[in-house]
């Protein structure tokens, strides 16, 4: 039995077919039809316009409109232009790109080819996290197949267009998923985000104009070209069209992947699709979009999973990694794990992030040990506030937001640790 999402739509529809990862299998289901259409029937401008009309938002966490991003690439440049496929899926709670790489490498490559045509890029660098050895192997195999059939390389599909794709494997740093940290790492340097401007579209990989998109973002593109913007907009909400793959983990009956339209209520995903919390226990809180997104308490799970609604609840869709925690969970323990992670992964360039992540982690661990006072809870919230929106990249925000979310909704857990001078949740999860 192949690993497939529990609920599928167009992206993952054929992931259960054993030969789908192969070029032959992919073409059996219409693969590369969209690329042929784009390269032979559409101008690059038309492709960009189509993706803009479809309203495809980046699926890597920030949700930036993909067509708009492509249009930032300089038109009349004699410098080579590059695409980068961000396959560094390192957000804790996220595991959607893995299956897209393992089972849908050709779908992603076709999206890359169409994006290359649209932007005039000569080369795509696929940066895959080092831990994804099998997915990287699958992508390399698919690339070889595509070259063999002239879907990559010289004179693609007889159009004279040339495009090359290369795979780079990462070495395990979370920050290399940040697009400019990724670019540094791709160039063989320490993965430290670059200050912006210049943005990658002006000065990206190896100093050349570059667009960075997530694996899933590329994977949607062939479907948009094949079936049109209106079809794409038939999924999801007006502002957030299309489906996405939610990865549900934690205290649920059926943890796994669910391809659902954007805007699907969080409660529907948790209770109906994932089967709710096992053992009749209650949900305590849910992180909606990977560990860097602020948590939502049980009472707010009615929210549709699209940024326009999640923002009203002071959180975001992120990567769609949904982490469910039941009533036995100690939220201080959660804060401790999260703050340790961000302390460990901060690149250390910016003062607020380098010092703030460490300070937060030390305070939280002291609260967890029962060695803190109530004023320390104030300081914790204040440090998180000092880190927000003031650094080179969004890492400091990603470190501050979940702590702010936990304090916003589960302050009582923190206060109880202080009052009882110990953790009141005996038997809360251990790592």
């Amino acid at each position, binding site marked *: 039995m192949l690993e497939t999402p529990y609920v599928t739509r167009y992206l993952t529809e054929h992931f259960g077919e054993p030969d789908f990862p192969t070029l032959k299998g992919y073409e059996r289901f219409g693969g590369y039809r969209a690329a042929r259409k784009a390269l032979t029937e559409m101008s690059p401008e038309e492709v960009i316009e189509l993706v803009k009309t479809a309203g495809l938002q980046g699926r890597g966490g920030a949700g930036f409109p993909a067509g708009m991003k492509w249009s930032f690439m300089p038109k009349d440049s004699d410098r080579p232009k590059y695409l980068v496929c961000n396959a560094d899926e390192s957000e804790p709670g996220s595991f959607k790109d893995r299956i897209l790489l393992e089972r849908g490498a050709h779908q992603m490559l076709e999206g890359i080819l169409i994006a290359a045509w649209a932007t005039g890029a000569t080369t795509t660098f696929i940066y895959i996290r080092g831990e994804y050895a099998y997915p990287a192997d699958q992508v390399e195999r698919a690339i070889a197949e595509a070259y063999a059939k002239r879907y990559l390389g010289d004179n693609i599909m007889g159009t004279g267009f040339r495009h090359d794709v290369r795979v780079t494997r990462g070495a395990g740093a979370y920050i290399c998923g940040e697009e400019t940290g990724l670019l540094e790492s791709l160039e063989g340097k320490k993965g430290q985000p670059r200050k912006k401007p210049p943005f990658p579209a002006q000065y990206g990989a190896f100093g050349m104009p570059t667009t960075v998109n997530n694996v899933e973002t590329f994977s949607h593109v062939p479907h948009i070209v094949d079936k049109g913007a209106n079809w794409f907009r038939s999924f999801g909400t007006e502002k957030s069209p299309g489906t996405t793959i939610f990865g549900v983990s934690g205290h649920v009956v059926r943890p796994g992947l669910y391809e659902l339209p954007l805007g699907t209520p969080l409660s529907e995903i948790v209770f109906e699709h994932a089967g709710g919390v096992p053992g009749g226990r209650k949900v305590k809180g849910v992180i909606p979009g990977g560990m860097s997104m602020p948590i939502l308490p049980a009472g707010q799970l009615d929210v549709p999973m699209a940024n326009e609604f999640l923002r009203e609840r002071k959180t975001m869709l992120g990567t769609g990694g949904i982490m469910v925690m039941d009533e036995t969970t100690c939220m201080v323990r959660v804060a401790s794990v999260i703050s340790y992670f961000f302390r460990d*992964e901060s690149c250390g360039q910016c*003062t607020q992030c380098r*010092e703030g992540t460490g300070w937060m982690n030390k305070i939280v661990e002291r609260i967890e040990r029962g060695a803190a006072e109530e004023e320390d809870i104030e300081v914790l919230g204040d*440090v998180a506030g000092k880190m927000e929106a*003031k650094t080179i990249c969004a890492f400091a925000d990603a470190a501050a937001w979940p702590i702010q979310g936990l304090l916003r909704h589960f302050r009582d857990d923190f206060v109880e640790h202080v009052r009882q001078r110990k953790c009141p949740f005996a038997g809360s999860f251990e790592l």
Partner: protein
Amino acid sequence: MPKFTVDGREIEAAEGRTILQALDDAGLLMNGVDIPHYCWHPKLAVDGSCRLCQVEVEGVPKLQIACDTPVRDVMVVHTQNDRVKAAREGVMELLLVNHPLDCPICDQAGECKLQDYAYDYGVRASRSKEPRRALKKNVDLGPTIVFDQERCILCRRCVRFCREIPKTGELSVFNRGDRSVIETFPGTSLDNDYSMNVADICPVGALTTRDFRFKIRVWFLEDVPGICTGCSNGCNIYLGVANNKVYRYVPRRNDAVNDTWICDAGRMSYREIAAPDRLRECEVRDEAGRLDPVGLDRAIEVAAGRLRRLIDSKGPGVIAGLASAHASNEDLFTFRRFLAALGSETCGVAVVRGKADDLLIKEEKAPNAEGAREIGFGDARAVVDRIRSGAVDAVIVLGHDALQEGLLGSEQALAGLDTVILLDTHASELQRVAHVIVPVRHAAEKLGSFVNAARRVQRAVPAVESGWETFADGEVIARLGAALGLEGFDGSYDVHSVARELAATHAAFAGIDLDTIGDAGRPLAESARPRTER
């Protein structure tokens, strides 16, 4: 040229400059407009990581870092409102979370930007109860620099300096997050010709020079503007002076000369001033061939007597002058005038040569070779050739540059002369052949001007007094001239009037006055003198 407004003040900026650069260009940064900063340095690439220089730009929702935000026309910037102040306090508090606060034993105390900004922009009490990072306090980075990892605030100026200025790149940040530390790459050390600049640009006490650390509290030091005499670049420096002693040279910014840097050799040349081999007494050689200590009057009398005897017997043509490129324009002009009044045609300047680079270090290892040539001193080799040919009986030597450069083949070239009169700062083999020796002042001990390799006239002011009786070379020459009854010499010596006369008689020096030249110097006028190949 974009115009922008900072705290209500309109400022014009050059195209493409960032807010901090534009303020620095206008001379307003920390001098009218206070935007504290750590990682930004005017002569290094923008890093943008310390995040202290955040300001509010109207119309932009997030605070922007002034170091990396380009000035746009009609941009309105606020540097002092509550939002900016809160952000600054936030950065300061975070920087101090792991700082050891060991100011009482830290050499940087008193000139520490962490101290200064904590007072000006920080929160008085720390709210952190957490243990601070415990790191190495005494890391040997190389022959010149000692590193305290705990004090480091990771601004990475030193890392960028090594990559961008000497382009040696010895330093890097290792590890990440709050475990980040600056280190040299394994098996290497911080060892380049400019290494000690990292201590100057380190805003805190993390990087200190092995030479200066633990010597004196910096608040006892007076910073006297001066010129490094190590080579003909004439790098601008501050001499750190206390108790009539120079404790250090640090670079003084002059964008036309040395930016904000000096080389290590130049920096260490302060030790010449109080070196144990400084000449301290006038001496004259007696009939038995021994040197006897005398006063200046007696030394002048003996020197004049010897020269007078030669002039009377053989004429002034047998007297030669060997000048030093360490002497000031005023000394050299007086010497040149003396030789002219005497009727001697044989004079030249000796210049020690050594290695050069394309940054600051120049081939000519003296501060005033260009000035000497401008004033009329030719190459000392011609003088030495005449001495060797036997056409010279007496030589007046300023300094021992000719000896050092090997022109004299140890001191032998002068050994058989009737009269050798030596004016020098330091001991040398020339003492063995000199008949009259007069100790003279180092550049740090007198007022004078020097012309650097780029033909810029720069001034040195007295920073210290030698603890014994010394004289400017010009003063000794002036008195010798009077003792010989030369025209235009009455025995008095006023450096200001000498400088004025130099300006009046040499077109290149026109308009240059010791009082008005300022600490930054000014270019010499183009001269008609044919440029010599060097």
